[in-house]
């Protein structure tokens, strides 16, 4: 700690500014919300000194346990950093959670039906609910998948949906991540760190557990084994130790007690996948893969990929191995296809969406494209296939030159861009550098889908630590905090 705050000063003082946002802890009048009351009391009593000490202990234990992520495109290649962790938890009342739970499960069910449909009869296109060129022009639409059946018709086994709240506190879906979403290990490790620090508070609060996530994930993976194999060999496929999420791969592999393999550990023979072991070859049934479609099989996709395994797609098409998530799920988290998810829910489930989308303008529609290029200063513009906060423009925070560049980009390839109005993201008190201030947050729960849909009560709350910043991604200076779902 470089700061030396006055020792007797409490963490939470009346200097905290709620600001002109929805604050998760305080009402606009500055009163703590009822589900935050006990935490509020604690923070008003705890001295900054004691708090700092717990905080640096948590930092050190993260470093020693190797809970780090790697940052690319820096001068030093692949520096390791601790994913900044904020000790003040985000709290969600039980009633609010059950709404989210229903909304997410509805959404994931519809998305899976959509994926089944577009890789089979394409009814949704024939019925003109979604334009054909949007699907066939999507970069992550995989023709190789057409007509292929996957166990239980599930494509997206693991989904990490990003939720945000606006200035009224309403929840919106910001994006659906159906291509191996990451971050769940932070949800679990943050909880461990919090339990060490605030043991007493947990009991009094009735926080619902998240520790069973790895078991739920394993159950999900086992339930989708090919040929209903009751005792499948499940492995986790990682790009390797230089991947920024490798820590997470190893963590989940260990928690589930499954082998983590790299492409070079796999070999395909007669459309069957095997691992190379010290005692010869061992058959594999389910692959929880943390590699993008593009890299998974050099015979079918990028032919210079060293990360995948030659012949894997054929083994998959032959139904001898399950890939989680399936190949081709990326088409559903295309940011332009996202705009149609509410329509999917109505089309497949005949229900009204419980969770709403952020209003989205599509570059592919001429009039919306005009609106985008003329209003860049008040929109967030996103490239449809990028993730991790790359390839986006935050209008109000951008320079004239950046806006010019994006105007040209959008005009050159309108299909590739969408724009959304700025959501005045909710804020949460966050303690950094001896100071308690409001930071913008989002929430990523993890939705598991096998035989049925399961959601562990909690998720990863990401924090934009840079004061005023709206980007919460770990690669862009974001941090995280523990998320408590209460059992009331």
């Amino acid at each position, binding site marked *: 700690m470089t700061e030396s705050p006055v020792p007797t000063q409490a963490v939470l003082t009346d200097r905290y500014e709620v600001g002109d946002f929805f604050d998760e802890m305080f009402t606009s009048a500055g009163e703590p919300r009822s589900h935050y009351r006990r935490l509020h009391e604690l923070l008003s009593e705890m001295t900054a000194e004691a708090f700092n000490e717990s905080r640096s202990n948590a930092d050190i234990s993260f*470093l*020693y*346990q*190797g809970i780090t992520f790697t940052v690319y495109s820096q001068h030093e290649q692949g520096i390791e950093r601790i994913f900044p962790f904020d000790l003040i938890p985000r709290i969600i009342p039980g009633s609010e959670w059950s709404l989210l739970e229903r909304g997410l499960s509805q959404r994931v069910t519809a998305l899976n039906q959509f994926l089944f449909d577009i890789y089979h009869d394409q009814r949704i296109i024939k019925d003109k609910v979604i334009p054909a060129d949007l699907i066939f022009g999507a970069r992550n639409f995989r023709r190789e998948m057409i007509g292929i059946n996957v166990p239980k018709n599930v494509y997206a086994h693991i989904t990490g949906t990003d939720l945000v709240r606006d200035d009224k506190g309403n929840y919106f879906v910001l994006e659906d991540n159906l291509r191996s979403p990451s971050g769940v290990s932070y949800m679990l490790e943050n909880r461990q760190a919090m339990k060490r620090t605030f043991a007493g508070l947990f009991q009094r609060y009735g926080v619902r557990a998240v520790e069973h996530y790895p078991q739920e994930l394993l159950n999900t993976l086992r339930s989708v084994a090919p040929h209903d194999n009751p005792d499948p060999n499940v492995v986790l496929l990682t790009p*390797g*130790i230089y991947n920024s999420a*490798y*820590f997470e791969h*190893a*963590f989940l*592999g*260990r928690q589930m007690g499954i*082998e*983590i*393999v*790299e*492409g*070079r*550990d796999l*070999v*395909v*023979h*007669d459309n069957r996948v095997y*691992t*190379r*072991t*010290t*005692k*010869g*070859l061992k058959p594999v049934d389910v692959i929880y893969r943390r590699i993008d479609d593009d890299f998974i099989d050099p015979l079918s996709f990028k032919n210079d990929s*060293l990360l995948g*395994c*030659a012949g894997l797609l054929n083994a998959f098409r032959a139904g001898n191995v399950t890939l989680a998530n399936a190949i081709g799920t990326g088409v559903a988290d295309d940011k332009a296809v996202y705009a149609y998810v509410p329509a999917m829910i109505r089309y497949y489930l005949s229900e009204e969406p419980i969770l709403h989308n952020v209003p989205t303008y599509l570059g592919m529609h001429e009039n919306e494209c005009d609106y985008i290029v003329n209003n860049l200063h008040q929109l967030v513009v996103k490239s449809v296939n990028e993730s991790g906060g790359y390839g986006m423009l935050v209008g109000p925070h951008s320079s004239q030159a950046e806006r010019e560049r994006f105007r040209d980009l959008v005009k050159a390839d309108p299909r590739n861009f969408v724009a959304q109005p700025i959501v005045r993201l909710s804020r949460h008190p966050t303690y950094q550098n001896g100071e308690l201030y409001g930071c913008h947050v989002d929430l990523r729960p993890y939705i598991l889908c096998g035989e049925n849909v399961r959601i562990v009560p909690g998720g990863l709350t990401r924090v934009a630590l840079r004061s005023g910043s709206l980007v919460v991604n770990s690669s862009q200076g974001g941090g995280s905090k523990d998320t408590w779902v209460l059992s009331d």
Partner: protein
Amino acid sequence: MLSRVADALYWMSRYVERAEDITRILTVNFHTLLDAKTEDAQAWEPIINITGDEDLFRRHFDDFNARNVSEFLLWHPANPNAVTTCITHARENGRGVREQISSEMWEHLNRLYFLVKDIKREISARGPYEFFDKIRHGSQAFQGITNETMTHGEAYEFIQIGKHLERADKTVRIIDVKYASVNQLREGPESSLQLIAMLRSCSAFEAFRKAHLSQLQPARVAEFLLFNQQFPRAVAYCLQRALRSVALMSEDAKHPTGPHRSLGRICSELDYVDINEVLGVNMRPYLNRLLNIMNQAGDEITRTYFHTQVILPAEYPPRQQQTQQQQ
């Protein structure tokens, strides 16, 4: 177990052991020098000989003195066997098999890594001895933690093989260099000092004393370090242990595997050699032979367990035994 994983465990363990051995050799030399009258170069050149990196050293330094040798062995970027490099490699290997080793082991490996990362600052702040102690304790603690927190299954055995082969290799090299210099001396205080240094370099001084009481002679010391079956750094002990691990793994094989055969052979030889056959001028050729056999055993291990060819299950006809290795 995955071949890649076995490979990483084996090397993780070898590198930790290597870092410890190099540190101990350095420490002992510093201590010995406090009592000796030898010139700097005479005292430090043999240390580089032990590691077998003379050519590399000469390419970067002119003089064999305490400063250069320490820098070379501790952190010089050109030296692939420098302590910092060893620990970094050990950690990289451990990282690749994070789910195979216990969290305690991984945490400890990280501690070691952060310690050597700040090596220059650590040494200037606390002096070399405290730093050396930390590395040594770190490595020993790592072996202890491994022993106590990990299932003693196949993964554990690969760690043991790596450790014991590395240790045997270093002991042989220490004997080689130190025996040569003692042999030139007449029996007297100077020779005793060198013999004590030789034993201390293998943490063997006290153990030797218990076994041989007052006979501090080159022949007895060499015999102890080569053939003792109970001392954990003696060559015979290390190779016995490596053999035991390999035998455990090939239990269900019909014939002994390559590494099993080569380790078995050398172990029986060590059982029956008389120290008098290898004293004096015979020492160096014999030690070279030992090093060669150990290298062979290492290669056999790589071939047998790490670079497995694709052996198809029996139901496939043999014509399909093409190799499908991808690197």
